[in-house]
């Protein structure tokens, strides 16, 4: 088990380097000249070629590619992602708090999704084909076809405006968590619960269930085995749910004015603030890879067959 963990970590390192390289390259493909963006943001009235060249030198953009990449990488490792072109503030000072806010929203949502999907998935698998199952599946189907911003708008209109129970936006009290978490949870739980359900159903048809019944084992013991096997598949997906939701809260944050990564990234894109976009992509990609590794390790811990293949 320890060896597997080590191997897995070692494999991620070249991947992380490659990803950082790709992120850096990505920014170089822009049709816009970053020096011009900076000058425009600074409100310079006339952008002459000399000014552009001067800004370029200031920003260190006249150095060769590899040097720039290594410089950037080294400073990233020290959490120095440069300065925003638009506001001039350090990127990390903007990204850091936003990341924490989004993380809070994500973790609460993932917990809710986990509980809801596993509960619904197991119940529906056991009642497969009967009315409970059909009802839950119909409702989840409908909710999954609803765009999250529409769902958010409806919930806001009903709970925040008509009933005035919850705040419409912002991140003040624990009450302000309810609606954004609800929207995120409903959106994802609909998908995940079906996965849990099909995993449990698939396991219920396996030969070992029949043999266990033939040996006279009580149903609840058999169910424990089934759930344990089903969770293998689902563990991987739930682990990956964290970075996926981390990157996917853009719309929800926008609707609820949640001061997180989503709102920040949209602002950055609108104003073509490259260092910010670059840092955002890098941070999320790293989070993705890290969680991928964790999920692989977890899967191997649960399924001994996987430890032997790498």
């Amino acid at each position, binding site marked *: 088990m320890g060896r597997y963990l080590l191997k897995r970590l070692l494999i991620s390192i070249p991947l992380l380097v490659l990803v950082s390289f790709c992120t850096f390259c990505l920014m170089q493909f822009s049709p816009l000249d970053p020096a011009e963006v900076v000058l425009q943001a600074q409100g310079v009235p006339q952008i002459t070629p000399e000014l552009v060249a001067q800004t370029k030198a200031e920003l260190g953009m006249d150095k060769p590619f590899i040097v720039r990449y290594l410089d950037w990488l080294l400073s990233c490792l020290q959490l120095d992602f440069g300065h925003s072109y638009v506001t001039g503030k350090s990127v990390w000072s903007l990204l850091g708090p936003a990341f924490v806010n989004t993380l809070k929203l994500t973790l609460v949502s993932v917990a809710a999704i986990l509980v809801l999907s596993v509960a619904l998935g197991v119940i529906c698998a056991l009642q497969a084909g009967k009315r409970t199952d059909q009802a839950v599946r119909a409702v989840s189907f409908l909710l999954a076809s609803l765009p999250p911003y529409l769902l958010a708008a409806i919930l806001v209109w009903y709970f925040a405006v008509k009933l005035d129970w919850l705040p419409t936006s912002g991140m003040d009290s624990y009450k302000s968590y309810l609606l954004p978490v609800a929207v995120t949870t409903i959106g994802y739980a609909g998908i995940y619960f079906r996965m849990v359900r099909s995993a449990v159903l698939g396991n219920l048809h396996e*030969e070992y269930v029949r043999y266990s019944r033939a*040996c*006279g084992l009580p149903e609840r013991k058999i169910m424990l085995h089934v759930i344990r096997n089903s969770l293998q598949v689902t563990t991987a997906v739930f682990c990956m749910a964290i970075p996926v939701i981390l990157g996917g809260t853009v719309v929800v944050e926008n609707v609820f004015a949640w001061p997180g990564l989503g709102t920040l990234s949209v602002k950055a894109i609108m104003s073509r603030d490259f260092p910010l976009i670059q840092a955002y992509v890098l941070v999320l990609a790293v989070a993705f890879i890290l969680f991928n590794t964790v999920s692989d390790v977890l899967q191997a811990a649960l399924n001994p067959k996987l430890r032997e293949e790498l």
Partner: protein
Amino acid sequence: MAVLEVADLQIWDSGTNQCLVAGSSFQVKAGSCLAIVGESGSGKSLTCKAIMRLNDSGLRQSGEIRFKGENLLALSEKEMRQKRGKQICLIVQNGMRAFDPSCVVGVHLLETIATHFDWGRDEITTRLTAAMESVMLRNPREIMNKYPHQLSGGMLQRIMIALALVLAPDLIIADEPTTALDAVSAFEVVEQLMALRQNTGCAMIFVSHDLGVVKKIADEVLVMKEGAVVESGAAHQIFSKARHEYTRYLVSSKLALSQRFSQVMGGVDVAEG
């Protein structure tokens, strides 16, 4: 004295209304071995699962299945569960898939025995170890700590037989236990099954499409084709003086295959004729 009496067993698919087994009747006498032979799809496995009431929920059955006088089809699920394992044991075809892949085999064995008997953990382990050694499994404790994918098909079959030894049921249903094995492992498993019968005096239903194995182990034979029983009788009669055309066809095809084998081996008498 018949341990099991099956009368007019019908199995049909409730979804398509297709009849899968049409009114089969047979008996298994105490201490004897009934072999059910036939091609794939003839309903052999369905019959076995029907006896244990383990068919998929889409399949329905009717008729009478009397086990030691009791009609199994009339029992509640709880009562049936108590009979499974303790009085009727099933040995399945594919050992690799019979055990939970995420647990070591020992877990299943301990759980099963603990469900039916009140023994302490140590006693269970002792009995299991003895049973596993008697089916020629070396290092039983090591084997109990292995995952199913780390063991061979033959070993897993023998583990199931060892479990049956400890449970000591009145009837053992072996559903094609040798089909997935190579010739050597199959031979060993058949030997173990015969020893099991001798030691516990239980009755056995042995399902197979390999007539060579059947000839070795069976007292009575039931021939099934496409869901119906075409012939039944004592083993030696079926093999030498079969009445139904299909049975004769089965016997002669098998004979043709093994004749060629004997020819190639230069007439040396190997495992069976």
